[in-house]
């Protein structure tokens, strides 16, 4: 049944990839434009320079990432539910979104990381500037990282956008797969008992699909964290190689990414529904 969506013919595919590129461009072009206008002098150095405690900033960043990822996941899950449970398979909105999602989620997360580096690094002159400003001899890589995210709200939002684009399609895809994996007889049994659609969803489908939805969220977040680690790493190594150390942030994101991906594999291994004969 899904063959309609997952196997567009080559010409359709070409058109769809074009649309995906346009969407990507539409997202990044304004960001690029804003960035170009941002001069180093515009950066509110004062606010950055009084970064007191590298560690607290670290947690701020982590907290920020967690909340953004969480929001993106929530949004993605909601989209997936709407697509999978409310729209019929033949609905053109559903088909369009599913195609886009399948293309966007196929882009390696590494590419997003490189994109982030390409866009943000030229503007991290900010960092050097700040390094000279706060010359109290204690400009560790941690405070350097802090400046990357706190130096400019534009950078901030650009990062945010990148992560939403990175996380959401992945989450939509895995959530839809999780919902599809709930054996049809379970839904049919619940409906046969007189349950309404929302009762079937809340009492039966969600409890079964939940671990897999969670696994999808973890995997997407793992990608996001790995990208963040790459970004931070490149920033550090290109601007403060003399520090010779990885920051806590780098380690945290890398470690978080690893743990999340292991967790997601575990969830998938443990909770994938056993295939049921579909009569």
């Amino acid at each position: 049944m899904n063959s309609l969506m997952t196997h567009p013919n080559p010409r359709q595919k070409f058109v769809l990839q074009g649309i995906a590129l346009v969407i990507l461009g539409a997202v990044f072009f304004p960001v690029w434009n804003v960035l170009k206008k941002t001069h180093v002098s515009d950066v509110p150095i004062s606010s950055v320079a009084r970064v007191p405690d590298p560690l607290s900033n670290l947690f701020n960043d982590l907290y920020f990432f967690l909340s953004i990822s969480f929001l993106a996941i929530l949004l993605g899950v909601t989209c997936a539910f709407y697509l999978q449970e409310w729209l019929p398979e033949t609905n053109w909105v559903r088909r369009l979104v599913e195609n886009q999602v399948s293309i966007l989620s196929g882009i390696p997360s590494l590419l997003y990381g490189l994109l982030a580096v390409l866009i943000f690094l030229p503007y991290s002159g900010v960092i050097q500037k700040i390094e000279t400003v706060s010359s109290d001899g204690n400009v560790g890589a941690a405070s350097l990282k802090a400046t990357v995210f706190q130096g400019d709200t534009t950078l901030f939002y650009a990062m945010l956008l990148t992560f939403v684009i990175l996380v959401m399609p992945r989450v939509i895809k895995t959530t839809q797969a999780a919902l599809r994996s709930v054996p049809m007889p379970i839904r049919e049994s619940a409906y046969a008992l007189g349950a309404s659609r929302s009762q079937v969803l809340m009492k039966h489908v969600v409890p079964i699909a939940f671990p897999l939805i969670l696994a999808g969220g973890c995997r997407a977040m793992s990608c996001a964290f790995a990208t963040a680690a790459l970004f931070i790493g490149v920033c550090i190594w290109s601007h403060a190689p003399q520090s010779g150390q990885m920051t806590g942030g780098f380690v945290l994101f890398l470690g978080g990414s690893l743990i999340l991906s292991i967790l997601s594999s575990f969830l998938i291994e443990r909770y994938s529904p056993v295939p049921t004969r579909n009569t």
Partner: protein
Amino acid sequence: MKNMHTNGNNGSQTTPIIEISDLKVHYGDKSALNGISFDVYKNEILGIIGPAQSGKTTLLKVINRTLEFTSQTSIEGSVKLDGVDISTIGDVYGLRRRIGMVLPLPVGLPLSIYDNVAFAPRTAGVRAKSELNEIVERCLQQAALWDEVKDRLDTLGTKLSGGQQQRLTIARALSHQPEILCLDEFSIAVDPVTTMRIEDVLDTLRTEMTILLVTNLVQQAKRLADRTAFMLNGDLVEIDTTDVIFSDNPANQATYDYVNGNFG
């Protein structure tokens, strides 16, 4: 249809509870039922036999309107329940509660044994704990499962053995006191002893409700059914009293061959 007399345990009972006329079902372009017509009488056990792909499951799904969840299906013709066309019934949840459905493989909902059985009454609005307890006990008794599970009603239904789970789904199907009980090859994952126990259960239920028994074991239909229908590739080949279908001269040669195991 052609033969209106019934025999078996219900003597002269001939009030139709389900009237199916010229029912056609398509999945996409593929036809699954090519225009079948027959009546189901009140308080009879109607056995439905036929090889794989003959449309038996599809027929049951039409009756409780769960075929609506399969996309790109089309239904023509009419199915009347107590004289009312089911496609015109607004309260489809109420309709489904009038029909109990047991699927081929036991489908343990991800709930405790108690909640599995209490699910339908709860969705129908029963809240009082004492009333729910009563329903749960009655249904588990009816399904011959009570003695085995009465001490662990809180454990997950999926932790039971296959045969127990199938009896649990029967208890669940009885929990909303259906007028019609549909069973779709219920014994596929059940050992012969449990199958016999469930058949005994069905035998006692025949006085209270109408039973549609889809089965791939022709002997099961012979043991239980008052009348038997033979379906083949979406057509109703023959429907008659079980005695006639299993006799040496049913109306159709294909019926004889299928029943006697030299089909195809």
